C-alpha cells in the first residue's frame, strides 16, 4: 500500500514537471494551443465532476457558468480595465453565488428532469446575453484588447505561454479542491447522496445544502476557466460561449475517464482533447471528429461502463487478490 501510494506521488510529480517545462521546450504554437485547451477541458470535466460525479446529478448546463464567467471578465476588462488573469478569480465568486441560487431552485428536480432544467439554463443565459445588448453588445459579441501585461502586449511567439501557466495553476487548484472535497465529510455526504438520497437524509445529511454547495463549487472553477478562455480568444459571443455542446463535451470526458473519481475527468481530457485536435488536423474541418468521439464513447460504454480509471483499478485489485490467494495457498 505504501509503495503504491509512493509511486502514485512520483507519477504526479513527473506529470507536473512535464507540464511546467512544456511551453519552454515545445515552441510550436499549435501544440501549445492544444495543451492549453486540454488543461481547460480537464478543469471543466473535473469541476463538473464535483456535482455530476460525486453527487450523481448530471448537469448538461454548466456551460452557463463558463459563459457567465467569460462575460463578466470581458466586461470588467473593457469597462474597468481589470486584468483578466486577476479578476477572473474574484468574478467567479459572483458566478458561484448565482449558481447557489440556481442550484437551490433546480436541485429540487432529479434524474432526467434535472438534466432538462440545466439545459434550459444555458439557453436562458444565451437569450439574456443576446438581448441585453446595451451591456453585452448582443450578437456582435465582445472583443478584448490583445493580451498583455502592464501596457505591453505579448508577442505572437510568447502569447500562449502565460495562458499555459495560468491554466496549469487553475488545473492544480481544481484537482486539489476536488481531492479535498472527496476526502472530507462533505464529499462522503455527496457520495451518499449519489447512492441513496433518502437514506442520506435519514442519517442526518442535509442533502439540499450539500447539493447546492457542490453546485456552487463546480460553477466556480467553470467560471474561472470561462474568464481565462474569453481573454485567450479575445472575442466572445453568446452563440459561441453559451454552447450546450461545451456542456455535453465535459460530461462525456468525465464519463470516459471515470465519473466520480478524482483523476478520471483529467485522464479523459488528456485523451479526448488531443485526439479531437489530431482528427480535426488530419481530416480537416469536417464533422469526423464528432463521429470519432461518439465511437470512442460507445466503445467505453460497452466495454468499460464505469469509465477507464475505475475499470483499470478494479483490474489491478483483482490481480492483487489473485496474487495474494496464490501466496496463501
Amino acid at each position, binding site marked *: 500500500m505504501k509503495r503504491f501510494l509512493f509511486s502514485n506521488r512520483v507519477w504526479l510529480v513527473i506529470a507536473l514537471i512535464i507540464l511546467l517545462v512544456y511551453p519552454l521546450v515545445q515552441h510550436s504554437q499549435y501544440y501549445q494551443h492544444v495543451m492549453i485547451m486540454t488543461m481547460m477541458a480537464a478543469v471543466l470535466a473535473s469541476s463538473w465532476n464535483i456535482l455530476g460525479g460525486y453527487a450523481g446529478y448530471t448537469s448538461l448546463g454548466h456551460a452557463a457558468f463558463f459563459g457567465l464567467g467569460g462575460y463578466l471578465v470581458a466586461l470588467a476588462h473593457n469597462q474597468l480595465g481589470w486584468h483578466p488573469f486577476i479578476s477572473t478569480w474574484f468574478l467567479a465568486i459572483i458566478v458561484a453565488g448565482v449558481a447557489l441560487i440556481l442550484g437551490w431552485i433546480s436541485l429540487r428536480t432529479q434524474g432526467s428532469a434535472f438534466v432538462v432544467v440545466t439545459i434550459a439554463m444555458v439557453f436562458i443565459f444565451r437569450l439574456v446575453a443576446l438581448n441585453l445588448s446595451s451591456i453585452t453588445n448582443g450578437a456582435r459579441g465582445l472583443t478584448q484588447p490583445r493580451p498583455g501585461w502592464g501596457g505591453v502586449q505579448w508577442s505572437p511567439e510568447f502569447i500562449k505561454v502565460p495562458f499555459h501557466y495560468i491554466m496549469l495553476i487553475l488545473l492544480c487548484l481544481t484537482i486539489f479542491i476536488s481531492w479535498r472535497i472527496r*476526502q472530507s465529510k*462533505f464529499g462522503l455526504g455527496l*457520495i*451518499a447522496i449519489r*447512492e*441513496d438520497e*433518502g437514506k442520506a437524509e435519514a*442519517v*442526518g445529511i442535509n442533502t439540499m445544502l450539500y447539493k447546492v454547495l457542490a453546485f456552487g463549487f463546480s460553477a466556480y472553477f467553470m467560471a474561472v476557466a470561462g474568464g481565462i478562455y474569453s481573454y485567450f480568444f479575445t472575442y466572445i459571443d453568446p452563440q459561441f460561449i453559451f454552447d450546450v455542446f461545451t456542456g455535453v463535451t465535459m460530461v462525456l470526458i468525465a464519463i470516459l475517464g471515470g465519473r466520480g473519481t478524482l483523476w478520471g475527468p483529467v485522464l479523459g481530457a488528456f485523451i479526448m482533447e488531443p485526439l479531437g485536435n489530431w482528427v480535426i488536423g488530419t481530416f480537416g474541418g469536417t464533422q469526423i471528429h464528432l463521429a470519432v468521439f461518439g465511437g470512442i464513447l460507445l466503445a467505453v460504454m460497452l466495454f468499460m461502463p464505469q469509465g477507464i480509471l475505475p475499470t483499470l483499478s478494479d483490474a489491478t485489485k483483482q490481480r492483487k487478490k489473485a496474487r495474494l490467494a496464490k501466496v496463501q495457498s
Partner: protein
Amino acid sequence: MLEVNRLSKAFGGIKAVDGCSMGVERGSITGLIGPNGSGKTTLFNMITGFYKPDSGSIAFNHRPIDSLLPSQICHRGIGRTFQITRLFWKMTVLENMVVPVRHTGWRTLFSQGVKKHEEQRAMELLDLIGLTKYHDEEARKLSFGQQKLVEFAAILMSDPELILLDEPAGGVNPVMIEKIMGLVDDLNQKGKTFLVVEHNMRLVMELCQHIVVLDHGQKIAEGKPAAIQNDPLVLEAYLGSTDHAGS
C-alpha cells in the same frame, strides 16, 4: 419522550393514518403492530420527517418536530432503519458506518471524512455485530441479514436517543433474529429507547414492554403484551373478517 397527537395522513382518498395518538416512554421498548396496511410505516415516515402530516402534531422531548427535515430530526436524536434495508451500496461497510452524523457545522463539513475516533467507534460496533472482517468490502456484497445488522449498527454511530426499527426481523433467519433481539435488549439496558414495527409476534411479545396496535390508521389498543394478546379488538383486527393474518 415522543408524543404523537391526533396525527392524520391521507394519500388520495385513502386515509393511511387517521387521528392517531400515541406516546413512547423514555427507556422503553415500544412495539407498534397491526395488520398490513394499517399505517405503521406511514406513521414512521411522519415521525422521521419523510411525510408531512395533514394534521396533528409530533413532539420529541417536548419540542415539536413535525415541520423539520429528516436530517434535522436525526440531529435531534431519532435514528431509524428501513423496512427494506437501505445502505450505500457502493461504499464500503466502514464508510457506511461513518456517514451518519448527528451534528454538522461548517467546520466539520470540510474536515477529514473518516476520522480516527470515528473509525475506532465504527470498528467497535462492527465487532458487536461480528462483521469487523468485512469493513473494507462494498456494502452490496454482504448478505441480506448482514446488511440489516450494518444498517442497525450504523444508526448507533450518531448516538440517537430514540431508535425506530422498521421490521428488524423481516426476512432474517432465526439465529440472526435472536442476535438482533439480544442487541436491542442490551442497548435498552444501557438507556436507549426503541419503537419497533414488527410482524414477528414472538419477538414483539418478548421484547416490548408496551405495545400499540393500529388498524386502518387508528389506534385500537394499547398496553402490556399480555393484555394485548387477549384484547378482543386486536384479535378481530388480525383474525377477524379479513384474510391478512399478522405473523
